[in-house]
């Protein structure tokens, strides 16, 4: 089916937020009453500040991290187990041909500009993705042939072909609901229906969200949440140690975790994310056309030692592009076990012994670290690796991502369910595999069982074909004051859900 291949260019600017811990938007909140937290406020430390607040025209994971689920709602969202659950849509039905979705919407939701949320806004938001969005993510809506407001609370969406991917994408930023009268200042003053409303933004420092007293669901505990941005991981740690912030939303310096684990004032949460750290191969380069070379590289890397060295052993080893929170996860780490002798021999047989490979790294801490380990390990099996660093995002995006002028690179792909997007001939991996394309198409158009089955096959396919090497899965590492509750273990959505946080 076409949706995966066109969406192919799904977004990796997302990687901006490399180890972004995103909390998952789960069902009803743990708090009750109108304002349980009274005037209490919270400060969360994060690493990547958005360049703009408009994710319809600006790429990157930093914007939905703040806004999705907090300021904007979607029709549907993902709960912590990855299941698609109601948000602004109370319920929905799917026609037998699986092409028509009918959503029943909540009737009491209001935008922070005062306008009521109706099916007309939903139609407007869906159509606007196709017309006004400029980021590559917009292709997720290509499969929609019509959206219609049957009544103020009933929305009908018709697809041109059955697609499992579409409803899932509706849980991401693409599914965010905008007000027809509130889109003039998306970049600086977003208007949504969420539990928080946008307060202020001190550029280079912090974004403040205020509790939305007109929120249609359970009111959040905190009256005000400040998201404070830190370039330097050590400064972020110091800020928690000295009480400037209450939460480290995403630990970037895992080595320094010991100072928190040994301190009873803090809790450390460790779970999984969607961020696969990929050692990507440029499959269009002659040397990588030979599967023996690709497999040899995978076998030359001692993943356990690599994870210990460059991410303090935190994180999970994966053998393919699927995180354990996806329904079709299988442990594929055994597909290419570490075997130096075999790798050396395979490279010799392929005539690639002594070949020089250019490892072009983005200037992100984990990439710099892991790159040095990869270089050292590959040189032990007879390859020559030259490292050069490209400034992230601008230089790396242009050189590696857009022009595919590289042999190997390292980046975390943090988008949910991005297997088909990343391993695609149009993507920077230049991975051309008709078998994979047909597996993905079958997964998208089939029923749930067919989807799981075909996705499993697809994951195994890229692993066996060694389309890339998967170094590890970024951990969700959150450190917070001991008395904070509502922090999710796994970060599997694009948003950092603030609505469930509370202080006990």
């Amino acid at each position: 089916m076409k949706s995966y291949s066109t969406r192919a260019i799904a977004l990796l600017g997302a990687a901006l937020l490399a180890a972004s811990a995103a909390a998952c938007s789960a069902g009803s909140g743990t708090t009750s009453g109108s304002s349980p937290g009274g005037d209490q406020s919270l400060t969360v430390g994060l690493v990547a500040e958005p360049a703009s607040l408009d994710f319809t025209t600006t790429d990157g994971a930093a914007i939905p991290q703040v806004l999705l689920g907090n300021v904007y709602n979607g029709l549907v969202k993902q709960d912590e187990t990855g299941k698609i659950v109601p948000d602004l849509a109370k319920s929905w039905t799917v026609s037998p041909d699986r092409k028509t979705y009918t959503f029943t919407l909540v009737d009491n939701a209001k935008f922070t500009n005062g306008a009521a949320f109706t099916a007309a806004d939903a139609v407007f938001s869906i159509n606007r993705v196709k017309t006004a969005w400029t980021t590559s993510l917009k292709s997720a809506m290509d499969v929609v042939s019509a959206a219609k407001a049957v009544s103020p609370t009933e929305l009908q969406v018709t697809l041109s072909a059955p697609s499992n991917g579409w409803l899932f994408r509706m849980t991401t930023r693409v599914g965010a609901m905008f007000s027809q009268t509130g889109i003039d200042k998306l970049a600086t003053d977003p208007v949504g229906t969420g539990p928080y409303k946008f307060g202020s933004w001190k550029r280079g420092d912090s974004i403040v969200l205020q509790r939305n007293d007109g929120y249609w669901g359970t009111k959040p505990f905190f009256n005000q949440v400040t998201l404070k941005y830190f370039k330097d991981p050590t400064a972020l740690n110091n800020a928690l140690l000295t009480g400037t912030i209450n939460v480290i939303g995403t630990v970037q310096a895992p080595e320094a975790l010991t100072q928190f684990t040994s301190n009873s004032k803090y809790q450390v949460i460790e779970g999984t994310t969607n961020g696969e750290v990929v050692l990507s191969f440029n499959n269009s380069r002659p040397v990588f056309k030979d599967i023996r070379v690709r497999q040899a590289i995978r076998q030359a890397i001692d993943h356990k030692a690599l994870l210990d060295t460059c991410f303090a052993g935190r994180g999970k080893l994966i053998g393919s592009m699927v995180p354990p929170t996806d329904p079709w996860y299988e442990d594929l780490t055994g597909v290419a076990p570490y075997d130096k002798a075999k790798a050396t021999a395979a490279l010799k047989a392929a005539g690639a012994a002594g070949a020089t490979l250019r490892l072009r790294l983005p200037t992100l801490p984990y990439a710099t670290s892991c790159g040095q380990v990869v270089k050292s390990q590959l040189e032990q099996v007879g390859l020559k690796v030259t490292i050069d660093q490209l400034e992230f995002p601008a230089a790396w995006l242009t050189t590696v991502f857009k022009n595919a002028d590289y042999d190997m690179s390292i980046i975390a792909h943090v988008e949910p369910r991005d297997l088909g997007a990343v391993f695609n001939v149009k993507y920077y991996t230049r991975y051309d595999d008709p078998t994979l394309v047909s597996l993905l198409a079958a997964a998208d158009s089939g029923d749930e069982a067919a989807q799981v089955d075909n996705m499993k096959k697809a994951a195994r396919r890229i692993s066996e074909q060694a389309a890339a090497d998967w170094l590890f899965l970024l951990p969700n590492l959150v450190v917070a004051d001991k008395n904070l509750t509502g922090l999710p273990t796994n970060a599997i959505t694009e948003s950092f859900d603030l609505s469930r946080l509370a202080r006990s």
Partner: protein
Amino acid sequence: MRRWNPSLVVGLAIVGLIVVVALLSFVWTPYDATLVDPAVRLASPSWAHWFGTDKFGRDVLSQLMVGSRTTLFVGLVAVGVAAVIGVPVGVFAAMSPRWVSEVVMRGNDLLLAFPALLLAIMFGAVFGASTLTAMVAIGIATVPSFARVIRSGALQVMRTEYVLAARAAGRRPFPVALRHVLPNVTSLITVQASVSFAIAVLAEAALSFLGYGTPPPTPSWGRMLQESQEFLFSAPRLAVFPGVAIAVAVLGFNLLGDGLRDRFDPKLEDRR
């Protein structure tokens, strides 16, 4: 006239030590400075690893040794660039008619408004961050101070009788500059080079700290310091060693500069 003064002796000793270590690192280091060995990561100092190992299991002493090469290299190229441009500009300004000299020196002042850090960040944006862009940026930013010092030195030489005589005899300016002016400002050049060297070492450290300096895996003291940030609590020694190395190197070049100045210009003795 005191030929040797304490600053000169200590400065020479430190700089000499760095040079020896850098040269030694070409033929011998305890370990391969870039060899990653997870088995011994974050080892404390021991007989096997005198200064311990970093998070990649690389030997810190070996890295410091090879890092001294980076430091010297950056300093040499930066000072070289500054001298190659700054000295002729200074001499030219001194020998030119007043208004030409004014224009040159105003242009020189304008360059002062672009400090090394700013230039290096701008160069890094255009050409990509690398040791080369850092060196050239630091060098260009150092040109004005060279030009200024050399010009005032050259002006003094121009007033000496032999230069006046040579010019009165109709010698063309270029040979005069080459025969009389340049040799008489070499001491100034040496002093200025030593001081600029110290500044270059500091600038490289700051740039590497910001990620605009030497890229990995080439060992650099500034980047070692930056990488040690994660370990300030668990292994502060990782910050101490490169930190001390930077400070000692800067100290050495500053002292050398002071010592040379005193030696070349005895009038100034014990003044600075």
